[in-house]
């Protein structure tokens, strides 16, 4: 019996522990939580705040599905139950509709935009028309007629929505079950029938995305540093990530400042993009095209730079945060000026930048130069040499390069930050002449579809990975040209350039990894074990974010650059992780970087055949110098910060009319007052009311 009761006690205890998730059944009767909620968040710079804000516990509004721009009248004027939560298809997400809603004066509780399944054919760009106009090189002092896009608007489709401030939450929703539920709820309860107004109870939605930071960056940085108590609540964080760079021959990184006898060609691309909503940033043409081209060019040059003795070193650089007033490039130039970088500005010979090159096949490649610095004859000569090298490199390839014939400024590019320091010869390679050929610049539609990275239907992911798309072929052509031009620029022999060729399959795999799915068999082989968890099955999000450690595009670029420019060395895993080639080696880590990557999966086993890759890849923090200098009102450097928030959620439910609520309250107060009165009367007359059964004791006479 003892054993049995023991067993029952143990079972009891187990039951109580295994109790299961506490699902509050009353809450489930009332609310339906939304699963996929992507908000627009608040960003701040030295003077403004942009983005969206909700109230502390979320904004509640009666659902209204917007049918057309004329239907806005219902929301803004005629509807009887404000505030409204507007659901719209992305075709209505235009500047005029959003500005009308913004001025809706309390009748608009929030907006939810349903993502379409295909890109809008006329293009859409929420960025400004003149990106980064205040932090480039053109100003009143430098090329005054060229500043602020006076000669040409780079992003003509830009409607500037990303840089507006909204005081209601704006969420993005996929067209899935939740959205169907919302539409059904609207049809059942909210839809005006035959012109009559809908009756309560009405379907409503609550969106919650309260942002802690307000006003601008100096305010929020000041609030960050207030020390009221032990726990310091931060309200905002500066946008930061990492720049990746790799010299074509090893440089001693422990010695900062000028390196004697080093002449460096900086070839750069950008690593980041953004969209109106915070976690979406596919950046296919704005970031991935240039990034993949530069990686492929570096790969093509691997053998050539090791075999031949070149006069100049090629410096492959990937800047992060260029979308937000050139965070990465301004930091690197600042470090070079302050002698905190292994090379300095005197070592830089020329700059070649790869911008947006994805649509090259339908247009030409254009080589942009800066007219102001070209007035100097020596700079002009160097630029002409560089362009000549680019032209010779294009011979024999299916690439046609041209220069814009008119005097126009450089497009938004990291090279402008170098020019701010001093004049350099440099060229920016783009696939457009006077305005972006990218119709979806910095929007959620700049994805694989817009870049025409298309795969034949019915392919498995593995087959898709190994299929060479047309876009990959054209980007490989561009990469070959860039690689050959760099070889010539670095002093290589013209006769040897025909062996330099970018690999189409590698380019296609890189495009697949950045634009379709970052977790595939190829990336799993070239990434170190500790970073496997960051790979996912979605398109890479290129937004810079605020993490101290690297984001996924940085991690991928790091490993890709290491594997494509480095070499495999026979070093044990222990030594590899400790950055040495043998037990007593103390010098190699100054010159090289060793990464132990996972390698291929062994057949019939979950083990992997890892190996050590030795490369010259390094990374440095990409944060605006304004935060190091603690000068948050500066207009010299980027001052962008992102607000912090507690929770982002959305839910739908029914609301009852205000009258019914007040009636309930009235009934409650009535019940309370009448029961108080009744009880008082009864208790004061209690001895009369309940007298017959009393013992006749106390009332003695």
């Amino acid at each position: 019996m003892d054993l049995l009761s023991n067993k029952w006690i143990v079972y009891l205890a187990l039951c109580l522990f295994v109790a299961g998730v506490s699902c509050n059944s009353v809450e489930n009767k009332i609310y339906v939580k939304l699963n996929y909620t992507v908000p627009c968040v608040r960003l701040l710079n030295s003077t403004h705040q942009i983005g969206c804000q909700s109230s502390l516990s979320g904004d509640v509004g009666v659902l209204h599905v917007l049918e057309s721009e004329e239907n806005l009248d219902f929301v803004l004027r005629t509807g009887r139950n404000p505030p409204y939560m507007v659901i719209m298809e992305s075709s209505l997400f235009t500047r005029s509709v959003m500005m009308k809603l913004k001025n809706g004066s309390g009748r608009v509780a929030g907006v939810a935009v349903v993502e379409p399944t295909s890109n809008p054919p006329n293009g859409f760009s929420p960025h400004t028309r003149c990106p980064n106009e205040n932090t480039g090189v053109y100003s009143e002092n430098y090329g005054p007629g060229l500043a602020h896009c006076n000669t040409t608007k780079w992003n003509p489709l830009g409607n500037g929505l990303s840089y507006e401030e909204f005081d209601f939450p704006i969420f993005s929703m996929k067209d899935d079950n939740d959205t169907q539920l919302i539409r059904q709820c609207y049809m059942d309860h909210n839809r005006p029938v035959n012109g009559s107004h809908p009756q309560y109870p009405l379907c409503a939605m609550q969106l919650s995305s309260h942002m802690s930071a307000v006003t601008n960056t100096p305010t929020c940085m000041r609030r960050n540093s207030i020390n009221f108590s032990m726990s310091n609540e931060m309200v905002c964080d500066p946008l930061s990530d990492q720049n990746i760079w790799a010299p074509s021959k090893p440089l001693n990184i422990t010695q900062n400042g000028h390196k004697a006898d080093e002449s460096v060609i900086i070839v750069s691309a950008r690593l980041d993009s953004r969209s109106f909503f915070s976690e979406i940033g596919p950046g296919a043409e704005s970031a991935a095209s240039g990034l993949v081209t530069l990686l492929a060019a570096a790969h093509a040059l691997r053998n050539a730079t090791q075999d031949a003795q070149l006069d100049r070193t090629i410096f492959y650089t990937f800047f992060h945060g260029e979308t937000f007033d050139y965070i990465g490039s301004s930091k690197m130039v600042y470090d070079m000026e302050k002698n905190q970088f292994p090379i300095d500005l005197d070592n830089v010979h020329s700059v070649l930048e790869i911008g947006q090159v994805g649509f090259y096949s339908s247009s030409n490649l254009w080589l942009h130069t800066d007219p102001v610095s070209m007035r100097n004859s020596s700079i002009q000569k160097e630029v002409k040499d560089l362009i000549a090298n680019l032209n010779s490199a294009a011979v024999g390839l299916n690439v046609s390069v041209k220069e814009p014939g008119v005097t126009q400024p450089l497009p938004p590019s990291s090279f402008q930050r170098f020019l701010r320091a001093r004049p350099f010869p440099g060229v920016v390679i783009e696939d457009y002449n006077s305005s972006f050929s990218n119709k979806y610049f910095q929007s959620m539609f700049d994805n694989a579809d817009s870049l025409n990275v298309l795969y034949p239907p019915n392919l498995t992911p593995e087959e898709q990975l190994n299929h060479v798309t047309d876009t990959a072929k054209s980007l490989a052509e561009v990469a070959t040209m860039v690689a050959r031009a760099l070889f010539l620029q670095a002093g290589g022999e013209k006769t040897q350039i025909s062996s330099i060729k970018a690999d189409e399959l590698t380019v296609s795999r890189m495009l697949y990894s950045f634009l379709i799915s970052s977790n595939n068999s190829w990336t799993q082989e070239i990434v170190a074990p500790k970073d496997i968890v960051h790979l996912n099955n979605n398109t890479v999000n290129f937004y810079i974010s605020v993490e101290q450690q690297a984001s996924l595009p940085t991690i991928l670029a790091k490993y890709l650059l290491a594997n494509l420019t480095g070499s495999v060395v026979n070093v044990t895993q222990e030594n590899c992780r400790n950055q040495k080639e043998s037990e007593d080696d103390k010098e190699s880590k100054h010159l090289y970087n060793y990464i132990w990557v996972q390698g291929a999966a062994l057949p019939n086993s979950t083990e992997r055949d890892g190996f050590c890759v030795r490369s010259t890849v390094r990374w440095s923090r990409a944060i605006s110098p304004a935060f190091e200098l603690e000068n948050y009102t500066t207009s010299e450097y980027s001052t962008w910060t992102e607000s912090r928030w507690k929770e982002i959620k959305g839910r739908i439910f029914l609301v009852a009319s205000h009258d019914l609520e007040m009636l309930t309250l009235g009934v409650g107060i009535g019940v309370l007052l009448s029961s108080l009165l009744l009880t008082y009367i009864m208790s004061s007359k209690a001895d009369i009311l309940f007298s017959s059964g009393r013992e006749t004791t106390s009332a003695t006479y």
Partner: protein
Amino acid sequence: MTAAVFFGCTFIAFGPAVSLFLFTIAREPLRVIFLIAGAFFWLVSLLLASLVWFISVQISNKESASQQKGLLIFGVVLSVLLQETFRFAYYKLLKKANEGLLALSQEETMPISIRQLAYVSGLGFGFMSGAFSVVNILADSVGPGTVGIHGDSQHYFLSSAFMTMAIILLHMFWGVIFFDGCEKQRWLAVAAVVATHLLVSSLTFQNPQYVSSLVPTYIIMFFMGVWAFYTAGGSLRNLKLCLTCKDKDFLLANHRPR
């Protein structure tokens, strides 16, 4: 649904109970103590019943809806029987305590009569029962939404509040009748209490047709109230005297000098 509904439903559910507490119990510390003890006894009965139900649910087949429904009915019946058992146990305890209190105290009369104890313990049971019935519903009524998105009735909060008010008052009436029945060995009264308790609890299975569960419950409450009034020593004559304000004359009339 918002603060208005929250306060409205709270006042509806706990209004009579709070006013009873304020005017009849709050001033007498002994009554307060017995009220809280009564609440505790109800809590223990709920704990036992829920333990049994929880184990039986874990053992059972979670997928079969009819089995779950059967288990729920079983749980309700068990809970009612346990509550009444604990009411009886509390009665026994109070009898023993009263004898002990009398032995200890200096006075000759009992400081609190068994009838007052019946009322107080009934109200204690009622408070705790009402709290457990309605507090989590009230907590959800503070939010912006009301019940209905899955098709349930809108009047969930209101009817829960009214039901709770009825339950609290019913527990008070049952306490009076039950203790009186135990005192005078009238087991019919005790059986009637148990039966009506079972009836009221089973009526809640009619929800969401709130009318068919609330109306009979209020009718039963009215009858129980009348029965408890008579048990507690009231009569129609007393009521008439009170209502026509002739009570002063009555008192004076009774205080005839001997």
